[in-house]
């Protein structure tokens, strides 16, 4: 690399050598020099890179005047146009961690410039930015500075050069929560046999899939008078108009569809299933077996319910990630809420 890559550094009032808690209210400032940890960091990358300057801001000021502080900081980043931004390390300092996390995240998301920070794993700033920013795993106090900086410098070097980062435990960063498929040197059955043997012999073993923890959803309050309620029909059973006009996937859905059923008595022969997770024969004979529009319309006629909502919503449940399912749920829920729907019949398969 002929030209050195440029690093912009962010620290708080303490590490910026302005002062302690009494100076936590100071406004952000920019110095074209290496202040505090930026100095040590510069020494670690000096062969190929350089720290071009340090932004300093009081922790209280940042957290209480986020908009102004962020504008100042992002303006400096735009003006100086660094190859990468480093914030912290914040160790276990909560307000500093929040600032380091939010600033790093904003720089990645808004300016598309990579950013690296360092924190103790329990710092609240971790959850703010771990999906977007690489966070070096540090000790819980500034005594760990000497260890933290080389780890951060090594990560910065790799990112700037476009090298792929290794595993979190190898590189020393906090896992981002991405479950990535890779190859093992042993087939799965062999790994299972070894894991079981370890358990039988009371030897240490490590699961490859820690059990997920689930959200709990509180049920909505009961509908007091069904005969006046508008009920919508929503399914994850992959029931779509024949021809699948919105090209919803047969597994691992990336989208949902909605179709006007206000003029129909049943889904009937115009609909079919594209769901790849169950025997489709019986659903194709009568799609209402999966999404019972026929029964709902009958209830509407009989006055059991007030009205069937005019649109029917659908997607495929099989292999669909919880992330996508949550997104679909929010999007569909928002539309139904805005349309004044009182209740939903949600069918799975």
């Amino acid at each position: 690399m002929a030209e050195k890559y440029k690093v912009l550094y962010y620290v708080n009032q303490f590490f910026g050598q302005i002062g302690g808690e009494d100076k936590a209210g100071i406004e952000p400032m920019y110095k074209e020099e290496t202040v505090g940890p930026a100095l040590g960091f510069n020494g670690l990358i000096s062969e190929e890179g350089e720290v071009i300057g340090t932004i300093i801001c009081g922790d209280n000021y940042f957290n209480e005047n986020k908009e102004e502080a962020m504008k100042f900081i992002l303006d400096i980043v735009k003006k100086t146009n660094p190859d990468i931004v480093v914030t912290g390390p914040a160790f276990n300092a909560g307000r500093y961690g929040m600032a380091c996390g939010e600033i790093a995240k904003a720089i990645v998301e808004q300016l598309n410039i990579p950013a690296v920070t360092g924190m103790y794993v329990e710092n609240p700033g971790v959850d703010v930015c771990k999906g977007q920013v690489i966070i070096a795993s540090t000790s819980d106090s500034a005594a760990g500075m000497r260890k933290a900086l080389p780890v951060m410098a090594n990560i910065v070097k790799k990112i700037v050069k476009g090298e792929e980062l290794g595993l979190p435990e190898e590189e020393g960063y906090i896992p981002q929560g991405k479950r990535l498929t890779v190859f093992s040197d042993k087939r799965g059955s062999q790994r299972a046999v070894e894991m079981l043997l370890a358990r039988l012999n009371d030897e240490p073993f490590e699961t490859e899939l820690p059990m997920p923890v689930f959200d709990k959803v509180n049920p909505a309050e009961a509908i007091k008078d069904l005969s006046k309620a508008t009920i919508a029909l929503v399914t994850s059973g992959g029931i779509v108009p024949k021809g699948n006009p919105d090209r919803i996937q047969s597994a691992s859905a990336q989208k949902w569809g909605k179709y006007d059923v206000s003029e129909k008595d049943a889904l009937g022969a115009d609909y079919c299933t594209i769901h790849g997770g169950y025997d489709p024969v019986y659903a194709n004979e009568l799609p209402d077996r999966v999404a019972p529009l026929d029964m709902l319309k009958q209830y509407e006629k009989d006055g059991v319910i007030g009205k069937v909502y005019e649109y029917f919503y659908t997607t495929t449940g099989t292999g669909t990630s919880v992330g996508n399912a949550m997104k679909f749920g929010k999007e569909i829920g928002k539309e139904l809420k805005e349309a004044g729907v009182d209740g939903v019949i949600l069918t799975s398969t």
Partner: protein
Amino acid sequence: MKLELRRIHIKDIQFGDKLAVENGVLTVNKEDLIEKLKEDERIKDIKVDIARPGEKVRIIPVKDVIEPRVKIEGAGNGFPGASTKIAQLGDGKVNVLYGAAVVTVGDIVGFQEGVVDMWGEGAKWTPFSKTYNLVVDITPVEGLDPHTHEATVRLAGLKAAEFIGEAGRKVEPDEVLTYEMESNALETKKYPDLPKVLYVEMLISQGLLHDGYIYGVNSQLILPTLIHPNEELDGAVISGNCVAACDKITTYQHQNNSVILDLYAQHGKTINFLGVILTPELTTLEGKFRTCDYTAKLCKTLGADGVIVSEEGYGNPDSDLVMICKRLENAGIKTALITDECSGRDGMSQPLTDTASEAVAVVSTGNVSHVVTLPPADKVIGNAESIATLAGGWDGALLEDGTLMCELNAVIGATSEIGYHNCTVKLY
């Protein structure tokens, strides 16, 4: 029971005048094979092709993969109960055309069929890029209902493997693998101090393209059942072309079940391998409770100290997996589970649809939604456009230049939950 798998190493497949193996080269008379398969009046047309490791060939939509074999001693040739007369399997000598496979393709039956690439990036993701594949492309007569269509192509694959397997009848094998285990009582006498281990193999049992078959019996109809591992290695269990391509247990993988083989390798050394329990994954809650209770009861009755449980498919069977685990662990039986995961294309979602705190030892065989880009093939056997409707594909997955972008979902055997392949997941 004592079973000899006598491997004849196959190094190439060629078309020729007769069916034979000479110096590791399998020669197949195409017309004879086609004629044999067309004896089934439900079949209108058969095409046969060859795909070799390293060739820039893509096979799609693959339904099943079967290992061609012939039984030269002992009861039952082929797949008794499914394609041949019923017989007790597990004893005898089998000549195996090791390194060859019959791969069935043809008009799509469901969404659960997949792709095999023989070279490059795609080859890494499927174990069947390493076999010499005789690809049988089946066109059924018009008007078959979907269940009959599926049964027709399933049977055609089995028959093709039996037909080809005959080539090995008189050939001396390159290696002989012997699998021998007597009654549990005798084995326990031999190895009184070794921990007793069972293998619970879950079979998806949920309708069209979602059933396994045991001696021809649909797994939907059974209570969990104990079989000798030799029976499965001898062809007792076949695929109903179940579930997504990435984690369906193809017939080939039943014939070479890697959990059975890896447990067998430890038998008498570190464990006393008691046998295999085949457990159906049903759709109803009552069914799940019944089979999970029953499975745990069998494990307890047999006195297992440890159990490996493998899943087939994902979604609702995740519940069966952790329910079985919970019951076993609560009974003091240690478990190791094998499953794949649905963590989303970005890998950021929770991996399973059900959870149990007892599941502390789990092998992950990959994220089914991991997206791969497979470069264009020189030759496609089957129909490249079918990716648009397969599980793991989408409309637009096939780019104009022939590049295929898809989830591992669509790649045969990629995330095999019997741990037949090498994929795993790391947290980044």
